[in-house]
């Protein structure tokens, strides 16, 4: 049982270290950029304002 716990903690540490390495090297793939957030904001505003004017 104790061996299993140690093995599981080692596995969690291994996984956490992988993410720490990715973060340290700024190697996250598919990160949301300023362009994504600008596009999201523009899309939301266009839909809200456009449909407000059309429907309300």
């Amino acid at each position, binding site marked *: 049982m104790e061996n299993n716990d140690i093995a599981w903690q080692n596995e969690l540490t291994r*996984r956490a270290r992988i993410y720490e390495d990715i973060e340290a090297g700024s190697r*996250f793939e598919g990160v949301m950029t300023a362009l994504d957030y600008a596009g999201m904001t523009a899309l939301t505003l266009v839909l809200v304002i456009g449909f407000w004017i059309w*429907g309300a």
Partner: protein
Amino acid sequence: MTDDVAHDRLAVIETERTDAAFYRACAERGDAPLLPSERLWGFWEFTYANSALAIATWAFLIGGAVGLFVGPKEGIAAIVIGNIIGVVLTALATTTMSGRYGIEQFIALRSQFGYNGSRVVYLLAVVLLTMGWLAVLAMMFGRSIDGLMALSAGEAANPTGVKMTVASVGAILLTWFVVAKGPTSIKFFNMVVSPALVLLMGVMLYLILSQRSFGELLALPALAPPFEDNTLNFIVAVEVNLAAGFSWWPYIGNLARLTKNERRAFWPNVLGIFGAAALGEIVGLLAAVALGESDPTIWMTKIAGPIIGIVALLFVAFANMTSMANILYTSIVGLRQVGTASVRAIPWGTILFLFCVIPLGLVVFYPQMYDGFFIFLVWTSALNSALAGIGIVDYFFLRGQKLDVRSLHGPQQNGPYRFWAGFNPIGLFALAIGCIVYVVVFNPQTLASLPAFKYLTASIPACVAAGAVHYALTRLFARGRGWGQYP
């Protein structure tokens, strides 16, 4: 000798493979962060999954509820406005961090509410709400089955009869069976059912438009507007749809962690959840107003005739089950994380079944709950909108989009997310403020509202108030006390 060495090596390799498969299964269930290489879903697969989640009969039913307040033109506007705001804010609060770190939503929530506080949030946001949703969706499934049996036999439907109860119980048990097989079976279910349901909505829209022109439909009045003030009716309709958008908060984070990266975790929500939900609600709205009946299990039989009606009801019944499978899976993944060691020790299939016991009881002993669907939905937004506000502020503005995966999964008693006895009083206070603001601005039970409701809605002030309180108090008090490892 050589054979012995080779045999030993093979045994070691086999053990390593078994361990790797075991750890991956644990990670899929949320016990550990999923590594990028282990994630299942790309953009389209997550879009299908989201569509399947959004396209259930709840979309039809919400559309019908909107038709009570406003006519189709205002209703379509309210559906688009409410859903896009609700879905975008909810996705920002949940899917970006899950997509980046592959982390289970309620483990990540330890950084906002503490390791015991996240349990409280789980109980409020998931256990109560998901059990309620499972029961409501199962009853919709049951009514669909009852409706199609009545249609095929040429009899009148009995939506509260024994057939409905048996079918509802069957839906919950079948959902349990599907989810017990793991996320791969849900993925298969989504990939098959979701495209078929998009097609069904197109057919329904075509049938509605073949009976009346779009212009005639837009000119139809609301079914039962509660106020003389049309602007107030419109804002209530927007609020219903904000509630629908925010209602994804407990679920999409744990689905998003199965995607390959952050961008694929976020954008499919706009296409899948917003697009599919808006389409389904618009179909429900147009049908409800055109046929004077908000229950989809009834208007489908009226609009399409017996044969197409049976096929449509069958599709819709199983669409409900895909949604049930998705919310059950995400809820249990969360439950295993917030629960104690003894909860985590319960086998996957058993814990799933135990979670289904209360929904089964509701279906059998409290079928009236189905009729309270609309009020139930709007109440959920008091909580979910505040949670979204806190999540966005904490992850983006207080932590700069960085989570400590090691500390979140490590021992919590002396870790940085201990806060105060495992509770972050700031996060919980902000949550309470958000809920209070919501109910003061708009009471879902009575529909009474402050004058500001007409200009601000209730979900948006609740979201902003909760986020602002969380930000200000964290800046003022958390860092000095060393709470929460804020940078």
